[in-house]
């Protein structure tokens, strides 16, 4: 059912084009069928050019291109569900072709939980166009009216009962120009047969039999294996190296120096020395035998303990305003009984189970790259710059990703492979080890936040001040940047949902002394941690129930437009008329999860429930966590519940799986020691000292309810993550009275 590579597709199309396959794209040019661009967030000119999304072959098989990367969110299945539903394709005739990197597809950056949001409408329109063409072709052949012909499951039926299959109609359809998509009716929701169901994902069987092809499983071309020793400090360089012992190892065939990056990190390789061998073990041993001395550069002083103090100092005093309503400052300055809290969270590494890996073959006039990448167009740009060829000549074949979580949006590994192939003239696979992944990543930002609130006589928040400071992602793209982009602040900070007459949000500068990158839900993680923890702290101070107080604090059903409060806010690129910040929907998920978890029930000693709710990626999630804390301070998560309102959803089981997985990903923030630096070097190296959740850290049951909704689709992959750490810490407080303001939890419960 599934095929991964463009090579296969090219073969298919070559053979099928000769006999006339019906091919539809975003906007197919010329005399061929056209489908206009649908709701693309930013439809580029190139996205409007000819492109392949659906090819109906003369044998009736329909090839559907998936132009987004598959990393466990089942986008390959979701895209097929949408197209096949609208075109009335029989599911067993659907084949998914993985699209390679190509600007003609429009955006391919598979992050930001937006694959469905960006593509659902245009995919539906394309599917509906095919269905229309099939009906029209049959009507013409039979000399009957279009209305007398209906299409179902690859068959067009006339009211008289006669039928033609899609395969029989392909050639006729090639001569028909379809009307503009706006004139082709889409199915009603009640007519959907694939969309909004829990159907099995197309790669499931390949996965359970070990046949799914991840980056290191690409066997053609047969590649030499490269392992790279990279500068331990960002901005560092090779001073000298001795490769004599490495070269002496049997199987090691070459040693190549990779140049140090210039300017802002971007997605450039860090540089270093590559050991190239004819098998992985030889490359690993060669790397062990290599000795390198480094020049550390200006980040050689990076020390996490000192940096933490500097961040906390920054948020202790007034900073630049991000959003302001009323006059919080003058109320807070007079309140001797105000609630004040500082929150801190360390760097984290995404640590996908599949470490970064890419294979490249360099030719004079093009480069082929096979990579586990979330953003193949970024591979094109990064590789092009590295080898000095135009982007159009970089063919990026996207494999299955063994997890991404943001790490694989940054294709430094593909550029390494391409550079080494250029230098050696051979196909090269760069295999990162876990140590490479932990020590040379693009890290989730380290952050500190300071919150103050004045409560009125009823316990409601009368004035609220929140300062945030974190190493900005902007630094990855602009050398030396110390202020975040508004796109980073909008992740759970600018769009604070607290309903108070006096609010002041501020942002302080912070340098980045490591490469900073997106990690699943990004700065929503620490912002939601602080805000949702603080609301629970305020509830306690006011002597109120956490859940009731949370509902009162976010206030009544209404639409909030933060730009009316002197804030810059791009709403995740979503039109605020279509995707408003809707407090009613946030309230609804809270009420739902409270009901699911039987909030308010009596618990045995040592047990506690915690709640948190947050809107991110235009989706609303609320979570309740139940924990048990023993007298000795041992923590056990008993169970958790989540309700999600993501608007229209395509695959209900995938959504549940993503919410369960996103919840567990959120446990990382609470239990992992994080990534810490000393002398500019990462102090962790593998899963023994960079702890990630294991089965014994997790609840065995995570109950999920999807709020039924006709609203436009929003994000699913990320929004369950930010709520988890605060719900967990609120549960810990309920269980044992200890408030966690600094992550990780570490030994704080033992004290």
């Amino acid at each position, binding site marked *: 059912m599934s095929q991964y590579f463009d090579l296969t597709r090219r073969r298919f199309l070559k053979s099928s084009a000769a006999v006339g396959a019906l091919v539809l794209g975003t906007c197919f040019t010329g005399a061929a069928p056209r489908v206009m661009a649908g709701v693309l967030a930013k439809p580029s000119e190139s996205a409007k050019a000819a492109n392949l999304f659906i090819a109906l072959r003369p044998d009736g098989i329909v090839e559907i291109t998936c132009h987004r990367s598959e990393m466990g969110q089942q986008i390959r299945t979701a895209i097929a569900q949408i197209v096949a539903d609208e075109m009335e394709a029989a599911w067993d005739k659907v084949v998914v072709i993985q699209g390679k990197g190509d600007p003609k597809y429009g955006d391919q950056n598979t992050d930001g939980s937006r694959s469905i949001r960006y593509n659902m409408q245009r995919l539906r329109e394309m599917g509906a166009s095919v269905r229309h063409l099939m009906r029209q072709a049959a009507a013409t052949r039979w000399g009957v009216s279009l209305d007398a012909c209906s299409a179902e499951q690859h068959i067009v039926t006339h009211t008289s009962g006669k039928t033609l299959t899609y395969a029989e109609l392909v050639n006729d359809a090639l001569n028909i120009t379809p009307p503009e998509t706006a004139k082709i009716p889409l199915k009603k929701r009640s007519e959907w047969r694939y969309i909004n169901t829990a159907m099995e994902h197309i790669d499931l069987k390949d996965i359970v039999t070990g046949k799914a092809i991840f980056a290191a499983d690409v066997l053609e071309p047969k590649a030499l294996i490269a392992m790279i020793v990279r500068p331990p400090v960002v901005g560092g360089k090779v001073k000298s190296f001795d490769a004599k012992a490495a070269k002496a190892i049997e199987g090691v065939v070459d040693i190549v120096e990779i140049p140090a990056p210039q300017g802002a990190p971007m997605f450039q390789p860090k540089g270093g020395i590559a050991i190239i061998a004819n098998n992985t073990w030889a490359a690993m041993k060669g790397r062990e035998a290599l000795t390198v001395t480094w020049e550390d550069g200006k980040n050689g002083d990076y020390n996490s303990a000192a940096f933490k103090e500097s961040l906390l100092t920054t948020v202790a005093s007034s900073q630049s305003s991000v959003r302001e309503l009323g006059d919080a400052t003058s109320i807070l300055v007079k309140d001797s009984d105000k609630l004040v809290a500082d929150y801190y969270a360390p760097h984290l590494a995404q640590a996908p189970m599949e470490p970064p890996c890419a294979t490249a073959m360099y030719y004079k006039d093009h480069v082929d790259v096979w990579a586990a990448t979330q953003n193949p167009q970024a591979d094109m740009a990064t590789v092009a710059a590295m080898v000095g060829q135009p982007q159009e000549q970089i063919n990026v074949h996207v494999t299955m990703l063994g997890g991404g979580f943001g790490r694989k949006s940054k294709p430094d590994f593909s550029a390494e492979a391409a550079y080494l192939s250029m230098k050696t003239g051979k196909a090269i696979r760069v295999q990162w080890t876990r140590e490479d992944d932990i020590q040379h990543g693009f890290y989730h930002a380290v952050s500190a936040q300071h919150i103050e609130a004045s409560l009125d006589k009823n316990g409601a928040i009368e004035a609220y001040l929140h300062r945030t400071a974190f190493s900005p992602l902007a630094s990855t793209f602009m050398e030396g940047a110390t202020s975040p982009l508004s796109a980073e602040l909008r992740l759970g900070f600018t769009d604070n949902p607290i309903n108070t007459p006096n609010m002041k949000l501020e942002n302080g500068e912070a340098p980045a002394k490591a490469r900073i990158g997106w990690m699943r839900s990004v700065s929503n993680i620490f912002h939601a941690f602080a805000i949702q923890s603080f609301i629970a702290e305020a509830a306690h101070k006011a002597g109120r129930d956490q859940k009731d107080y949370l509902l009162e604090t976010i206030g009544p059903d209404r639409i909030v437009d933060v730009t009316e409060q002197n804030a810059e806010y791009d709403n995740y690129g979503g039109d605020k008329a279509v995707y408003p910040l809707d407090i009613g929907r946030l309230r609804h998920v809270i009420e739902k999860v409270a009901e699911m978890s039987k909030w308010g029930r009596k618990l045995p000693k040592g047990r506690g429930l915690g709640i948190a709710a947050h809107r991110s990626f235009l989706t609303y999630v609320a979570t309740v966590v139940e924990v048990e804390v023993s007298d000795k301070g041992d923590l056990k998560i008993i169970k958790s519940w989540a309700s999600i309102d993501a608007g229209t959803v395509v695959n209900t089981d995938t959504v549940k799986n993503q919410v369960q997985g996103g919840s567990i990903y959120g446990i990382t923030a609470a239990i992992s020691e994080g990534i810490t630096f000393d002398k500019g070097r990462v102090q962790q190296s593998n899963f023994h000292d960079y702890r990630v959740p*294991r089965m014994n850290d997790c609840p*065995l049951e995570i109950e999920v309810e999807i709020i039924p909704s006709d609203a436009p689709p929003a994000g699913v992959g990320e929004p369950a993550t930010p709520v988890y750490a605060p719900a967990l810490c609120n549960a810990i407080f309920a269980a044992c009275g200890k408030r966690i303001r600094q992550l990780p939890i570490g030994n704080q419960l033992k004290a």
Partner: protein
Amino acid sequence: MITFTVNGETRKFSGDPTTPVLWYLRDELQLTGPKFGCGMAQCGACTVHINGEAQRSCTLPISAVSGGKITTIEGLSENGEHPVQQAWIEHKVPQCGFCQCGQMMQAASLLASNPSPSDDEIVQSMSGNICRCGTYPRIHKAIKSASKSMAGVAYYVPEKAGEES
């Protein structure tokens, strides 16, 4: 020269005896079901059966399996019909799928030695296998349901796996 079987087929290896079984399987035999996740027996993505027992192939030198039987996911069943694989499908366990071959090999080994494990025994046996997608609740449920279908069904005797082929 080291001799052993892989999925029932006799194999000989005369290269570096310190080569981990994982790299022999992947680089030499192109058996890509076992995955590289950590290289220090911390994550379980590389789990295979050695004489019927789950072991981490990334740290196991090939010299240690002389005369032994190696089974990979490719040898667990012909077409994914092992009860563990069936349960994985039934519960739609995988997300990205990268760790799942290792998870299933660990689970198959657990059930072969303990056909009806308790909840805690499952947690204990599976906590060496990391899944970053966070499919643990589904893995746990799938093992429970595989254990039901395996009770009394001698589908797979790992010690003998592949001998008849």
